[in-house]
């Protein structure tokens, strides 16, 4: 990882010095070792704080919407999943392609500090990564872990490590990345589909009623770039959490997930940022799975400019509810 980080910094310096770009979006050291945050770097001296390690799960593509409105050109580093968000934003004409220089970077999966803590590992001050072996350095000594044991949900169910078509101006990949099975992420959706409606209702009530309506899931989502969001409209009746003892939060969740249906690349950011650990990916993936099954395989962001399934149709499409006959 250190090697990768060095190469990224070198690339950033080269592009800044060469005048190709005038700023860089990457990850910066945070207050604690594990809270690296997205940041913009304007001078090469500032790159001292640049970091890339197992705690860089954040997807940087959405920042380009705001950056595209400014002058000059910006360098951005994109992990494989982020390149799909990037292409999707190009499709929706939210990013000015000419103002962005994209570098795709190797990814082996990013870590979830909560899973690390859940193993009783506290006081994290460093990380050593060798492929799938991860050594977490703490104030109290080192802990050796397997990467797969402490990855973020989105990385555990990574759909592919192939960069989206044409998204990268260049890539930095030192080691070959593993092949992924894009269908493994649907396993939990299938489990839920097998339950009875009452069980599903109980499951979702227990999950969604934890929501505090902080809107972090919307704010982070690269598919949520509306100038005016319905959830900011106080007249909508769904702009904030209500004192309703019967589970009104579901309205927000149905609407949010519907708004991104067909456009959600399954980047997993919403679930990652949710402070209540609500499995939002299970809502998004339900739509992805149904779209694949009913309207043909579709991966949002795989191809910039592709037509999303919900703004398309076929004469032979089924009627609503027809797929929900008894027994399912």
């Amino acid at each position, binding site marked *: 990882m250190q090697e990768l980080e060095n190469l990224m910094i070198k690339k950033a310096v080269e592009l800044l010095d060469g005048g190709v770009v005038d700023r860089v979006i990457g990850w910066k050291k945070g207050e604690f070792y594990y809270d690296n945050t997205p940041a913009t770097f304007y001078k090469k001296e500032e790159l001292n704080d640049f970091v890339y390690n197992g705690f860089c799960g954040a997807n940087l593509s959405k920042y380009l919407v705001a950056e595209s409105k400014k002058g000059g050109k910006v360098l951005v580093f994109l992990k494989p999943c982020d390149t799909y968000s990037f292409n999707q934003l190009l499709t929706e004409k939210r990013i000015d392609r000419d103002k962005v220089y994209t570098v795709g970077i190797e990814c082996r999966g990013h870590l979830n500090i909560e899973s690390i803590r859940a193993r009783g590992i506290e006081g994290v001050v460093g990380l050593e990564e060798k492929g799938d072996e991860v050594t977490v350095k703490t104030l109290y000594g080192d802990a050796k872990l397997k990467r797969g044991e402490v990855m973020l949900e989105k990385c555990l169910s990574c759909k592919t490590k192939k960069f989206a078509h044409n998204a990268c101006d260049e890539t930095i990949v030192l080691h070959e990345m593993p092949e992924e099975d894009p269908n493994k992420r649907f396993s939990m959706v299938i489990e*839920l*589909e097998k339950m009875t*409606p*009452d*069980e*599903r*209702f*109980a*499951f*979702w009530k227990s999950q969604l009623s934890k929501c505090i309506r902080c809107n972090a899931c919307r704010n982070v989502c690269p598919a949520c770039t509306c100038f005016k969001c*319905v959830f900011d409209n106080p007249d909508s*009746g769904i702009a904030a959490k*209500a004192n*309703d*003892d*019967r589970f*009104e939060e*579901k*309205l927000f969740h*149905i*609407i949010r*997930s*519907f708004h991104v*249906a067909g456009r959600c690349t399954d980047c997993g950011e919403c679930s990652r940022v949710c402070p209540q650990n609500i499995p939002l990916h299970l*809502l998004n993936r*339900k*739509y992805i799975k*149904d*779209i694949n099954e*009913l*309207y043909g395989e579709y991966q949002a962001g795989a191809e910039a400019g592709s037509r999303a*399934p*919900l*703004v*398309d*149709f076929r*004469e032979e*499409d*089924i*009627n*609503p*509810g*027809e*797929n*929900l006959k008894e027994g399912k």
Partner: protein
Amino acid sequence: MQEINEKYEPLIVAFCCNWCSYAGADLAGSSRLSYPANVKIIRVPCSCRVNPMFILKAFQRGADGVILCGCHPGDCHYTTGNYYARRRMTMLFDMLDYLGIERERTRVEWVSAAEGNRFAAVMNDFAAKINELGENKRLEDLRCKN
């Protein structure tokens, strides 16, 4: 959570497109065909005008069943509106089912301007179904109830 409401009168909201289904409802009326009075019709320019939020809003405001009626596929006044509506509603109904909400509470039917009989039959059937299901509890919003 099944509280029995003695005074239960189902409330049904029917979104009808202006060109086919609303005219179909008109024909049902002028042909003196009867359908339940608790079906409240909302006229929309096209089935495609119906944002999934309208349907949720209807439930939120106390509907027990929501039905969307539009021109038969291929007959849309705007050529393709109902095709888009069809995909959207398919997705919405899938999600409602996934959340454990009774799937009979929502329905889409294609009713042409000449199908007064069909309009009345569809509404009678839907109302009977909703009567059977009872009050909408899973999609209600207590703020909107008195």
